[in-house]
């Protein structure tokens, strides 16, 4: 019964977060000083060399508002939006690229973002934790401080500087990777898959380097603190090996906060893509969101941000639900 109540409470919180998130997502773009219909009419005026008459623009404006679902008061639009999103995950057409459905735009971009950022985040997390564990467990040894230095060196470098440096080094001075990759299209073949992998390596390496440092430092701090716990001392007195103490006593206990951090960073993958995609000309959801934000493309913004909210909230829910399984202290509460 306690477990059921715990799960029900977490699920309730989850849906509340989603509801509030969706509502804010609906409201935020409308508070922006941008009108997508104006923007589109402006483009048309430009293409038509300014020859559209005021009557023509009035007609066009009415048509666009109807097509974009911007008719009616705010509440009517909100109800219609919630119905569409909740029941059919339909975000409507893109305003800027009408009649392209938002869901199709996101679905095209998502695999790229997920493929690169998920992989890079997992590699950075795994490598960072391994190095951090060794640096923390052997923190009194000089060699370990070299590992810590790696984290201290990498962590504070702004991502943009790091990315441009890597690009300059590995794509210009030593042109191992392309400066501006061209991703192959059409039917996938092993060769094309290889090209995609090769073209993704440079942004991947940069992302790993950028995420790596923080994981080293945080795991090192956790490992130092954990290795000084009485149960680790007791294990040492029992005669366990360094390896056993490091992996079974320190690592397992230091890992919990890192798992939380991993879950949250996986949730943030959706909106962390922008700079990477801009610098490395990499396809994904970040650039779509940027274009949508500057062009007042509400529906695309809804779609992308909603996805991000769902991902972060779900990651939080999963963590909350599996934590009791990992940590008996929480289970007893």
């Amino acid at each position, binding site marked *: 019964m306690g477990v059921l109540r715990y799960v029900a409470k977490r699920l309730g919180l989850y849906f509340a977060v989603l509801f509030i998130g969706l509502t804010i997502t609906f409201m935020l773009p409308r508070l922006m000083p941008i009108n997508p219909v104006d923007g589109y009419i402006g483009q048309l005026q430009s293409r038509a060399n300014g020859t*559209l008459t005021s009557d*023509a623009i009035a007609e066009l404006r009415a*048509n666009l508002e109807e097509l974009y679902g911007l008719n009616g008061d705010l509440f009517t639009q909100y109800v219609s939006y919630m119905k569409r999103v909740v029941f059919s995950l339909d975000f409507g057409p893109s305003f800027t690229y009408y009649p392209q459905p938002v869901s199709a*735009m996101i679905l095209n971009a998502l695999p790229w973002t997920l493929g690169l950022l998920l992989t890079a985040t997992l590699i950075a997390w795994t490598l960072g934790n391994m190095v951090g564990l060794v640096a923390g467990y052997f923190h009194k040894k000089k060699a370990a401080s070299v590992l810590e230095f790696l984290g201290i060196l990498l962590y504070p470098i702004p991502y943009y500087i790091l990315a441009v440096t890597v690009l300059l080094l590995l794509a210009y001075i030593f042109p191992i990777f392309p400066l501006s990759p061209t991703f192959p*299209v059409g039917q996938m073949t092993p060769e094309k898959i290889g090209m995609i992998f090769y073209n993704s390596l440079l942004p991947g390496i940069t992302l790993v380097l950028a995420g790596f440092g923080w994981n080293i430092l945080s795991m090192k701090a956790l490992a130092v603190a954990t290795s000084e716990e009485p149960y680790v001392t007791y294990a040492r007195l029992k005669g366990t090996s360094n390896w056993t103490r490091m992996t079974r006593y320190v690592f397992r206990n230091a890992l919990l906060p890192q798992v939380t951090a991993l879950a949250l960073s996986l949730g943030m993958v959706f909106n962390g893509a922008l700079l990477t995609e801009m610098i490395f000309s990499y396809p994904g959801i970040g650039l779509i969101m940027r274009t949508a934000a500057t062009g007042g493309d509400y529906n695309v913004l809804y779609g992308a941000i909603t996805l991000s909210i769902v991902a972060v909230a779900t990651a939080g829910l999963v963590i909350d639900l599996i934590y009791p399984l990992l940590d008996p202290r929480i289970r007893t509460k």
Partner: protein
Amino acid sequence: MNRLGRLLMTSAVGALTTTTAFAQAMTDVGTPRSETLIVQTFDGRAANPSAQNPLNSYAIWRGFRELGWGYLWEMDTATGVSYPEMADGFPEVLNEENTQFRIKIREGITWSDGVEFTTDDIIFSLDTAFKYRDKLTNVASAVVYIKSYKKIDDYTFELETVNPSYDLTTRFGVYTWGTPFNWVPKHVFEPLGDEVVTFQNAPAVTLGPYKIKEFDPNGFWQLWELREDWQNSSWGNLGEPKPKYILYKDFGAEETRALAFVQNQYDVDTFMSPDSIDAAKARNPKVETFSATFPYHDMNDACSYGVYINQQRAPYDMPEVRWALALSLNLSQVGISAMSGQFKAAALPLPDTPITGPIFYDANLEALKNLTIGDGYKPFDTEFSTKLVETLAAQGIDQSLLPTGDAVNEGFGVGWWKHDPAEAEKLLASVGMKKGSDGFYTLPDGSPWMIEFVIPGDWNKVLQRLGFSIADSWRQAGFNVNARQVDNGEFTTVQNTNARNELAINWSNTCVYNANWLGNWNQFRESNIKPADSTDPLSGNYARITDPKVLALVDEGAALPLDDPKFVENGQNIALQIASEMQIINLMNIPTTIPTNSTYWTNFPKQDNFYAAPYTWWSSFKKAVVSIEPTGQ
């Protein structure tokens, strides 16, 4: 480094060199580099690459209007003169009111799938536009312009316009960069029925000599291939297109683009900052700017930059205030700090190009010199360019890079307004505006005057830098200016909404390409004026021109044939009237860098080889496509 290390390093460098050399022989999309012209896309990456239906919003910047679509009439951008493309001559006018026309098209033009282009395609395109006018988003320009149309035979049709149309060849053809309404293939679209409104049309069946070979669904690139039957295409009669392939690709952020340019990965760029171009030129002698001497940029865009003033609002409704702002602006200093001195000043509300210069600037030069304001003050400075060159020389610019003689005015303009803050102070004092104890001017009632000046954020870096420099210049002269950077979306809203706009840097009403000023200034109409505090969007006239003299000149001119001397004269008078009342503080021609790399292709349009506007995103790029030459590399 030990012996093993040296061996490994040598092998690695050798392998890389071999790989690079091999990579340069073929492009990333599998075409021979020597047969492929590669251009940086104007808008970067497309978010809608599969949207290729011109009746809706489509991926316009991937080469469609240059290589894909076909026009009845095209524009020679070196001279500003229209010429027939798919039309067989110019339209025959059928009535005195100039509303009825008979148009013939050339026989033997085929779509890229081999089907012949006939008037059936034209009639079908118009039928579709009218039938679905409330569902299609890119047909407004046609349906509000045309009253009726009919097929005469397969190569002849007639149409009637709503109003007298002396500019039919540019309204239904090309004025500058392309046409607003494109023909669609009946044999592809008709079977779709109502689904035509959501049809993506990818890859599109096109009319130009190139057809789409492949495009990246992620929007980074689009590859065009020359049709074997290119002579039957819409502009096959222009000559043989030289590249077998043309690749439009986004090479990413400017840093990456500059590096890729140095590596000869592409041939023509769009906008690149002077710093990046200098860096690229220093590393690769094949990288060239539009002009060999200062200013290096191309200045032939149809539009010019200016400060648009909401003249409907106090205190900007007083010409003294507008003139004070103009005379307080040190354009020379602004241009040097924001653009390294690489700009061409333009005092009239339009660019000063080889086409517009003789029509508008030469005609008004004496009037500008003799113009007086206030108590007889003459504000025009004919020495502006000469002084600018002297300043640049004093700042250490190599004399050999600076123009001399007539080239000074050709490069930097025939003059601009004097920088005279003392005269500005006199003008403001005449309307009761004086500096307060904080050193800033106050409003006539003595209350603080804070100017909100809207400028683009980093989505337009040139204007962003220009805006901040202007604000700085005004602050030095005693104006309390808040330069507010905005996103592209908000910029449009500010432009369109009276209640949101005070002063903004802009270009949308200062686009005049040749003697036909109607295209843009036609917006200066009574119907496009809304109250000063209106929150309703404007439908044009973003410069908020309310001067009855200008409105009357536009009204009269719109009913005149374009080649009527009175029509041209009206345009000249509109330009002078707007400048005399300082209704727009026009600044300069839009500088476009257009650096090229001549490793694989030569004979691009340049200042001293100006056979077409050098923009790869204007439909006139087709002129470059038939004129460039392969180097054989």
